[in-house]
């Protein structure tokens, strides 16, 4: 059963469970217990499964470790501590491992020397041994590994991938039989991805190897829903989750947050002035605070901000950038400078969001929306290092949509509403890998193996049929008998209901190819028909491109034509603006929960504003208009400055005066209008659901609309909606047609149709390669050969076709579709949205406008939406806005 720890234990109760020397050490070094420690010391000393969430700087690591250290010193003083592993600590971040090692070394040494001091020579007589700690990662040398095999540390610090190797190393496993505690740190990093699922399987397999059950301790920053995370940590027993106590310290730090608009009028203020105001605000915060941490959402943004701050305000070495494209050394250097308090300000994209100890930060500034409440809380939570401090942070917004989004985000953070994560369920590729791993350890009874797998939360509902399809795949049963020796990774004896490893090579293959992260590769961009190389893009980005998409590279515009293996072919584009922004794959999608809360706000606030418009018979709006009192009072409750209040208010008034409707959580506005620059017709679905849901929804609507209208249509997707474009005005189109399509989609479901739609896409081919790699169908490392990504990629389309001919439910194909539809896109919530439309909880309304309504402006200019190229985008926006305002005033 999962339950929450309610009342903290008294300090005396908590400290009483500790070994006296450990207790003395703690009391000497800390004045008091932090909130998570008030629960954790006692719970962990009782060997309970515990999930602890708390912001950075709240003594989370110590709360997990201290009772364990205490237990080990107890054993040592009884002369019972052996050269065995008692505790495994796993962190997804390698850098954190060295941190932990350093941080634990000190207490271990100091406690030992206190014991030695008191006991003197009796230490030897009583067989008191030091408690040891060791790190094992991919970087550990062969020599160190050998040493560790003979003299295993009591506390083993490792990564998920190294753990997977250790549990398959027949010699080292002997050292793991004694494990009593497993700590998984940074749970929020492992919650919603295959890496976390992979680790959960490793931990369950470890459980199968140890003499006694061990307790599982999960540590994480903000993470919701906690019950999900707890189940992911402790797993299932039959249809019930195992016991786990949740210590929720996520909110132990107070938040002081605000969304700021750099200027009052976000539309007509000159771009230069907006920039000036933004940098002036940054400068003000940096000067006022002891240390400032600035988050931009992209790596290029990080560099730009550092450059500008230095240029404008004569900062020097006291400002530094920290992001994923920098070398490891320069990142470590920045972290070190921060820790020592030698930096005034650090600017980061995402890399400083979690983990690594960076010392004390006074204020966090976020430029543009971080796209999720959880992320906002995590980032702002980096401010105020002690658990008693208040985390101070502000978000400087970039546009009016951004403003509404950030306002609601911070409001939700203050109300403690977080967005949720989903654990990928029944990922077949990760499982295939582990089944190979299991077969290497011993011969398995099918049901025994299946039952073990079902103890993992991510597989607790795995159909037996799927498990068997993997057994058959791995046994090479899809090829003739004579080839199984080459194809089969395992043997499967149907009569005996058993399976085991096939061949001697398989262990080496397993060790060299395990893991869930696909090879990262740069794709070469070439001008079509020539050998001219123009630059590199990331594969992630390539997966998002459709032929005809225009993007920037090295300051020039190119049209994407096609791709082959690891090459993308382009032609120089004549267009004025890109259709896809360069950070498209880097940008995080808006979370569904936050999207919903924004929809709620739009609903409430637009009601309020429309009442006012009706009462005052307001027909015209000018920039001098004052905010009416009732509305001002409402806005006052939100964490925003005065500029922002004005911007939000004018945004809604303009939309209502121009289009009469504001899209919201109960209204999906569909707007047929004309794009200014391209002279195309566009159909805008104002569906504020986040990009992942919109990706699925737009494809479903797109296919149906193309069928009904008999034309080709282009589509652009963003967090706030999706846009179809047409060469000519679609005459047959009307509200009824759209409604009928929605009802039909709700009735028939969209699974089959989406499958067909993504079947021939770049996304499908590349994801298939990743899945085929993870399931060992196409090996990256084989017999000393590293097989290049382009070899892996080539022909994946044909392999796909061949596999489908053999069995349309071939597990590798099934998993590829599952990953795309459920992890990349969010089909389940797209279906929920459709069923809401069917039930009338969301209404569809179609309007036609001469030019896009204010709420559509950011959707239309999406491709232009890079901060660097803000200038063009603003001109365009301004032009749109001018026309809207003219139309509104003409009506008078």
């Amino acid at each position, binding site marked *: 059963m999962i339950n929450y720890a309610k009342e903290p234990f008294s300090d005396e109760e908590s400290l009483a469970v500790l070994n006296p020397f450990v207790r003395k050490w703690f009391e000497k070094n800390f004045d008091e217990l932090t909130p998570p420690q008030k629960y954790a010391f006692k719970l962990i000393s009782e060997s309970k499964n515990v999930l602890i969430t708390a912001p950075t700087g709240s003594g989370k690591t110590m709360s997990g470790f201290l009772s364990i250290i205490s237990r080990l010193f107890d054993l040592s003083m009884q002369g019972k501590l052996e050269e065995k592993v008692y505790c495994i600590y796993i962190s997804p971040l390698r850098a954190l491992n060295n941190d932990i090692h350093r941080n634990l070394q000190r207490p271990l040494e100091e406690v030992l020397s206190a014991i030695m001091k008191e006991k003197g020579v009796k230490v030897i007589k009583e067989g008191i041994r030091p408690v040891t700690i060791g790190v094992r990662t991919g970087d550990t040398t062969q020599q160190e590994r050998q040493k560790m095999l003979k003299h295993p540390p009591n506390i083993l610090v490792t990564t998920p991938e190294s753990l997977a190797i250790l549990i398959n190393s027949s010699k080292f496993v002997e050292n793991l039989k004694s494990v009593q505690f497993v700590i998984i740190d940074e749970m929020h990093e492992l919650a919603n991805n295959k890496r976390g699922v992979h680790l959960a399987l490793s931990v369950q397999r470890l459980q199968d190897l140890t003499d006694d059950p061990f307790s599982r301790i999960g540590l994480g920053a903000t993470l919701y829903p906690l019950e999900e995370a707890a189940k992911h940590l402790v797993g299932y027993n039959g249809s019930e989750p195992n016991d786990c106590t949740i210590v929720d310290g996520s909110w132990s730090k107070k938040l002081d947050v605000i969304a700021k608009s750099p200027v009052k009028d976000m539309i007509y203020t000159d771009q230069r002035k907006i920039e000036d105001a933004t940098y002036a605000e940054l400068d003000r915060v940096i000067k006022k605070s002891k240390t400032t941490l600035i988050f931009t959402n992209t790596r290029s943004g990080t560099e730009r901000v550092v450059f500008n701050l230095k240029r404008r305000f004569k900062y020097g070495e006291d400002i530094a950038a920290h992001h994923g494209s920098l070398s490891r050394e320069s990142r470590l250097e920045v972290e070190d400078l921060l820790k020592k308090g030698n930096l005034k300000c650090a600017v980061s994209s995402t890399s400083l969001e979690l983990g690594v100890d960076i010392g004390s930060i006074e204020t966090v500034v976020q430029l543009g929306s971080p796209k999720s409440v959880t992320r906002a809380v995590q980032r702002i939570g980096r401010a105020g290092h002690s658990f008693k401090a208040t985390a101070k942070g502000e978000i400087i917004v970039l546009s009016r949509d951004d403003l509404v989004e950030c306002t609601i985000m911070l409001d939700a953070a203050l109300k403690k509403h977080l967005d949720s994560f989903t654990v990928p369920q029944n990922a077949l590729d990760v499982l295939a890998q582990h089944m190979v791993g299991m077969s290497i350890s011993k011969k398995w009874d099918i049901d025994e193996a299946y039952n073990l797998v079902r103890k993992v939360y991510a597989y607790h509902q795995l159909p037996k049929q799927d498990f068997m399809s993997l057994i058959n795949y791995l046994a090479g049963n899809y090829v003739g008998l004579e080839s199984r020796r*080459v194809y089969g990774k395992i043997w499967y004896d149907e009569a005996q209901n058993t399976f085991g490893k096939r061949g001697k090579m398989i262990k080496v293959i397993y060790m060299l190819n395990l893991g869930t992260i696909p090879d990262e590769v740069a794709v070469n961009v070439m001008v079509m028909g020539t050998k001219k190389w123009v630059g590199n893009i990331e594969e992630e980005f390539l997966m998002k491109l459709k032929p005809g998409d225009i993007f920037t590279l090295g300051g020039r515009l190119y049209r994407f034509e096609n791709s082959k293996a690891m090459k993308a072919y382009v032609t120089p584009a004549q267009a004025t603006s890109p259709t896809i922004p360069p950070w498209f794959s880097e940008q995080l999608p808006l979370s569904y929960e936050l999207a919903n809360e924004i929809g709620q706000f739009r609903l409430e606030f637009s009601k309020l504003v429309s009442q006012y418009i009706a009462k005052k018979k307001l027909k015209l709006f000018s920039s001098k208009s004052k905010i009416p009192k009732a509305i001002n009072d409402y806005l006052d409750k939100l964490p925003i400055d005065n500029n922002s209040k004005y911007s939000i208010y004018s945004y809604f008034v303009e939309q209502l005066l121009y289009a009469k409707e504001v899209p919201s959580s109960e209204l999906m506005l569909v707007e047929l209008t004309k794009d200014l620059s391209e002279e195309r017709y566009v159909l805008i679905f104002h569906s504020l659901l986040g990009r992942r849901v919109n990706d699925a929804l737009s494809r479903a609507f797109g296919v149906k609309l193309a069928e009904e209208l008999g034309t080709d249509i282009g589509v652009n997707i963003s967090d706030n909606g999706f846009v179809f474009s047409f060469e000519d005005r679609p005459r047959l189109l009307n509200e009824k047609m759209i409604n009928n399509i929605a009802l039909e989609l709700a009735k028939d479901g969209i699974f089959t149709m989406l499958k067909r739609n993504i079947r021939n896409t770049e996304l499908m081919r590349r994801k298939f390669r990743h899945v085929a790699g993870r399931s060992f169908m196409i090996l990256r490392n084989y017999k000393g050969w590293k097989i290049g990504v382009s070899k892996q990629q080539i022909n994946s389309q044909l392999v796909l076709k061949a596999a489908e001919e*053999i069995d349309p439910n071939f597990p590798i194909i099934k998993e590829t579709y599952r990953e795309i539809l459920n992890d990349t896109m969010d089909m389940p919530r797209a279906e929920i949205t459709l069923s809401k439309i069917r039930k009338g909880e969301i209404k569809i309304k179609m309007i036609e406008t001469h030019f896009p309504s204010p709420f559509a402006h950011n959707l239309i200019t999406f491709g232009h939406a890079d901060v660097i190229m803000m200038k063009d985008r603003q001109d365009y926006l301004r032009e749109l806005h001018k026309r809207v305002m003219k139309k509104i005033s003409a009506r008078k």
Partner: protein
Amino acid sequence: MILTKDIELLDGLPIAYIKSLNALIVADLHLGYEGVMAKRGSALPKVNYNKIIEMLTKALDKTDAKQIIVDGDIKNEFSTVDEAEFNELFDFINFAKQKKVQLVLIKGNHDNFVERYKEPFKLVVHRQETKIGDYLFFHGEELPHETKGVSMMIMGHEHPAIGVINAAGSKEKLGCFLHGKYGRTPILVLPAMNYYAAGTDINFHARNDLLSPVFKKTNVDKMHAIVVGYGSTIDFGPIGSLRNL
């Protein structure tokens, strides 16, 4: 599709039929492909052999041919005969025997060691290039030597295809014959029989990037792409006009 008085391209199949020789002409089977790939770490589903047999069975039903001329690369490996290859080669020879057709092999660059099996299996094996009737068969990795009195040169090796970009955004490749002139002599390039050889999309490749030296001597843009797929065989016109699909 009727190509000449004497040559028919069988609809929907990468196979040519020559009446005067009463022979099916195929190239680039790469038997044993999946087995060889599996040994290199890619466990591709086995489909190639069955697909080839399926296609040849159809062709034999349609034509009553008494010979199958394999214009190079019956098997995949360069240097050795792999076990998987051997098994499929053996099955293939048996298939021909059952169907009562004579196998004629033109050696391709992947066909070393085939000669070893010439005697026991009573195969007709020709090295490099050979004239049968007034047709010149050669695989294509080298230029032909003797073209005098040849009514048509027939080669494989290149795995020709054309690329078509579909609405969903990815490129689909369709195998094709190439038909044109080499100097003054007509030439026919056969598509690959192998299932996994998606082919080289000729319309997306510059002339210099093509595999066979033959294309250095002739303008591929003037050659017609005769596309095979979806049950039919259709002339798509010269490659030059397909460059901007």
